[in-house]
């Protein structure tokens, strides 16, 4: 399986993503510069973490207009998997591929720590090898990690798992 790792100016976890795909999962991985218009025949697209365009204006606000995002949008709309990590997730929100938006953390602090999440669903490509109820220890590092969406959007997300 081939993974495309999108590189924006200011991405800094692109090599982490490459390492995870290539050396941990043992799959094919290729970097795709944000000015490119194709995804090199990838089966999975990863938008890695970092500070694309210096986080200017809003996190992910400028990266969403990168040429490669047209291909990412088509890829997602065709039902294929796109993984947005940290700044990559923020870009997907700004692009409208995910609902909601990210706000400055409530305490205004940059959070860099491990958190624990419990797996509720295992019928997704991202959790297929986990067990329901399993607790995962996940590292986080963000200044704008306060997810915001309108109440009805949150209810819809909750209802769909």
């Amino acid at each position, binding site marked *: 399986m081939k993974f495309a790792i999108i590189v924006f100016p200011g991405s800094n976890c692109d090599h982490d993503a490459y390492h995870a795909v290539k050396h941990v999962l043992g799959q094919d991985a290729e970097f795709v510069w944000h000015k490119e218009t194709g995804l090199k025949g990838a089966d999975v697209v990863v938008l890695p973490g970092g500070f694309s365009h210096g986080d200017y204006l809003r996190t992910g606000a400028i990266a969403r207009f990168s040429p490669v995002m047209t291909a990412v949008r088509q890829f997602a709309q065709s039902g294929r998997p796109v993984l947005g990590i940290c700044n990559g997730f923020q870009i997907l929100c700004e692009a409208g591929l995910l*609902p909601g938006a990210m706000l400055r953390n409530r305490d205004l602090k940059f959070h860099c720590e491990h958190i624990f999440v419990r797996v509720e669903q295992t019928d997704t490509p991202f959790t297929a090898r986990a067990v329901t109820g399993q607790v995962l220890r996940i590292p986080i590092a963000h200044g704008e990690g306060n997810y915001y969406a309108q109440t009805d959007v949150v209810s819809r997300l909750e209802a769909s798992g």
Partner: protein
Amino acid sequence: MKARVFVTLKPSVFDPQGQTIAEALHSLGYAGIGDVRQGKYFELELDAASPDAARTLASEVADKLLSNPVIETYRVEIDESERRSLKSES
């Protein structure tokens, strides 16, 4: 022509920066200051034929890039003073 665009968080969205500033002002003794909301301010130089066209253009870029409609609202002001001064010279 110039446009000024003011972007602020929607009233329903919590603004921790504004709240921190308000608390700082209160600790400085400014009891008369209530809520503070922090926003962004943009000055755009526009090539537009009329104030209406300028407003349309500024609103378009505010919708598209300057603000995120999920969490923010914006207000546009058009400054015609530059255009007026050009007129008075002719």
